[in-house]
């Protein structure tokens, strides 16, 4: 009888613990998504306006892409590059650049989305920046 009561008492606790575990996992995923968002956006910002334009015209780093799983080497083509941890494979990214003017752009609006699957739903976060042409000449 005691065991029965104890077991019934444990059930909500298990749910409680599972919920906590889920929250922890979600928080962890959020932090990973944030890390991806910060890393990619900073990398694009560091390219500068001309770099973005070059990358759009003649992609070298494949920075701008449709949905793509986060896997493989962090720096493609660099044999010494560290690889994304396997846990990151559950994340997908999509990065797009939109010029303010198609014919004579002076700014690029960079939109990045990170999505991943949580147990009960697909979660996504949007990051972004604006890369401006600081030295038009």
């Amino acid at each position, binding site marked *: 009888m*005691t065991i029965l*009561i*104890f077991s019934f*008492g*444990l059930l*909500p*606790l298990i749910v*409680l*613990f599972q*919920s*906590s*575990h889920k*929250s*922890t996992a*979600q*928080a*962890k995923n*959020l*932090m990973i*998504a*944030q890390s991806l*968002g*910060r890393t990619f*956006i900073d990398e694009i*910002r560091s390219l*500068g306006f001309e770099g973005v334009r070059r990358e759009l015209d003649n992609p070298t780093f494949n920075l701008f892409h449709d949905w793509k799983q986060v896997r493989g080497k962090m720096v493609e083509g660099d044999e010494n590059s560290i690889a994304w941890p396997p846990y990151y494979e559950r994340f997908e990214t999509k990065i797009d650049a939109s010029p*303010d003017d198609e014919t004579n752009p*002076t*700014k690029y*609006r960079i*939109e990045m*989305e990170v999505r991943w699957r949580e147990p009960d739903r697909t979660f996504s*976060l*949007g*990051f*972004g*920046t*604006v*890369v*401006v*042409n*600081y*030295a038009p*000449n």
Partner: protein
Amino acid sequence: MNRRGFAYILAVLILGLLAFMGLFLKQTTSTEYTHAAYSVYATMAQQLAEAAADEAFVQIDKLFRDGSADGKKGPLLRQLATSDYRDKGGSTGLNPKLLDVLPPFKNYVTQTNALISLHMTRAGFEIESVQPRITDCRPIDHRPLTKPECMFIPKDRADQSFDTTMSRDFYLSIGFDVTVAVTSGLKKSRFFFQITRDMKVINVGPIGRNYTLFSCLGVDPRDPSEVANDLSRGDGRLVLWNHPYQSRVYIHGPAVIGLENPDTNPASADKGEMYGAFMQTSPDGKPGFNLAFQYSDTYNGLSYLPYPARALWEGRDYSYWNNLDNTKKDLDTMTENEKKMFGHNTYKKGYLPQREKTYWADLGKFLTTGISELQKEYVRGTRKKQTFFPAGPFCRFPWKYVPVRRKAAYAPNQVEDTWPNPDPDLRIEHRSLLNSTELDEQTKIYGEVRHFIIRNAGGIRILDTTNNYPRLEMPEFSLNYGNFRDAEGLFDAIWSGVKDLAVGAWRNITTPAKLLWHGGSALVGIVIKPQDPKAPAAMNDTDLRNFYPTNFKFFYKAATHKFKSVSDIPKDKDGIWLLEGLYWLDTFETTGNVVYKGKGMIFVGDNFKPAVIRGNIVAFRNPDGTRSDSHLTIAYHPFNSNGTQPDLNQCQLIIEGKGKLIEASIYSLAGLRTTGGSMTEADFRECGMAPEDTPAKWNTTLKLPTLREKIVAIYGNYVNFYMKKSRIDGDLWVFHDINNPMYFKHDPSTNNWMIKQTYDEADEIAAHAVVMSPRIQHMHFSGAAQ
């Protein structure tokens, strides 16, 4: 013992403990998630703030670059002009009104707002404010080069500088404070982002814009023979095509301009035939081209010094730029006394051909036949070929004329009512310090002539060879030489006092001190350090007062971009150089033609490497074919990696070949080197400049494009520290560019070009380039920890 109750209690206790732990864990993980979410929002807010700040920076940069009435370059420059150096405790020039005139930048962050509304929609982001901050406005410290007392002011302007504080270079810091609000549920959080960049506002206008030529130290005084000969060396001519009455020419001095006597024959042992005293290569006594070049059909003449002496006289009408026509009318309005000055041989040591006569024949006749007086004196040049022409054709007064007595009359084209005697104003400007007559005396520019006396002995010509005649004279180089009322005074031996020193002391002068470039005192240590106490004071030129041309600076301090070579210069899709700021290049070599747009300065001066121009460098043309207001200033100041200066005879800026046109203000430490395009008489004829014709005729026949194909032309002006004329082996013609608004203003109603002696505010705005660094000076983000 009944222990069942204890088990229950234990189970409840364990469950309670587990529940407590679970709740605690739940609370913790929930908080962890909230914090993670908040951290994500902070990252997003920072990205939005950075984006907004970038958009705002671009906008403020655009506004500060805009010199139009709608732009803010004017207000910025006005504010900067009131700033002063830090060490004087001077004002930063900060004026809150400048911020008042700037628009609200929140309206300009359109792409950031698009990000918020289209993409980053998870939380309620909002750009609440984007506020600019301006700090640390200061002039860039180019002292002593830019100290008012060190910038050259000619005597006729007394203490009226060409420049104002607005002409300086400046730096400042611009920051933006961005506030991003995030609304999550009922809670509104704010993130603050600060970012600062530095900005330079650089005067990229011409160096020494009032001067067609400005030579800070003139011929290299370390070599006595150079003082006497450098301006006569080199196979190519250096021709300064000044704008009449307005352009100025400055050479530090002392220096000697050798004048041409094409008939000279120094190899002849017969003294009577020496120096071309009687000998003419033409039966008519026709001068060579270099003399014809200086000749005019007006009785006012053009000659620097006579062949034989020709006179110069002021016209009565100074209203128009084309004075040739006007001066022809002057004879009719002259007083009788004045007319006497311009009859045949009315001038004792000169000769004035009549305007309507065939003057070549007339000139020849003077020397060969019909000597009616008992004695004639005249001077001729001493050089077989003259290679330095401080004025081009069509220039009666190649230099701006402002008499000393009317110092208040600073505007160009001033005329003096009463002629001075002697008139000191038509000399080439040279080193001067107020209250220092010694320096003035020792740095004059001289002409080298031979003074002849021909005696008429019963109708037979006799060249007087007594008393060292025909003797070498060094009168001060002057345009009004032939008009000098006190003719005998011409040959007062100003020179003789100096030339002894020249031989005795200058030889002992050591090489200039090291260029202490890296120590920040470059161009200061360049002055001559004499060892001989008897050396002329001018050689002991450690006094930097009244020394530097306008807009001369420590170029590296003002640099806004650092490039390896011309290939790094920003270009548009057509390959046109885009200028905005001061580009510091490691090397400067052009291989083809260059067109530039905008305003900028190119400085080359790192680890001496040759700088070579192999094609044209021209300003962008407007659609209607007219010259745009684009301007380029090239500064070549080579120095070795150890801070010393390279061999001054080998470090010229080279313009290779002929037919090159450079539209720029050019400064080169040791002058320019040209390698092709020495004009022959046939070339001049082809250009419509036949020697037997006059410049007035040339005015109608001149084919300027043909001329340009045969020479090297600079449209702009030319500044150097050392002349090194000997390195000019192809004709170099420097045209003071009337079509460049950095130099001249054109009045279409009168078709009159007026030099911009001083810049007004609009000119200063046009001359300054505003460059904001893309690099971040300071960044701060807060709010994530609230």
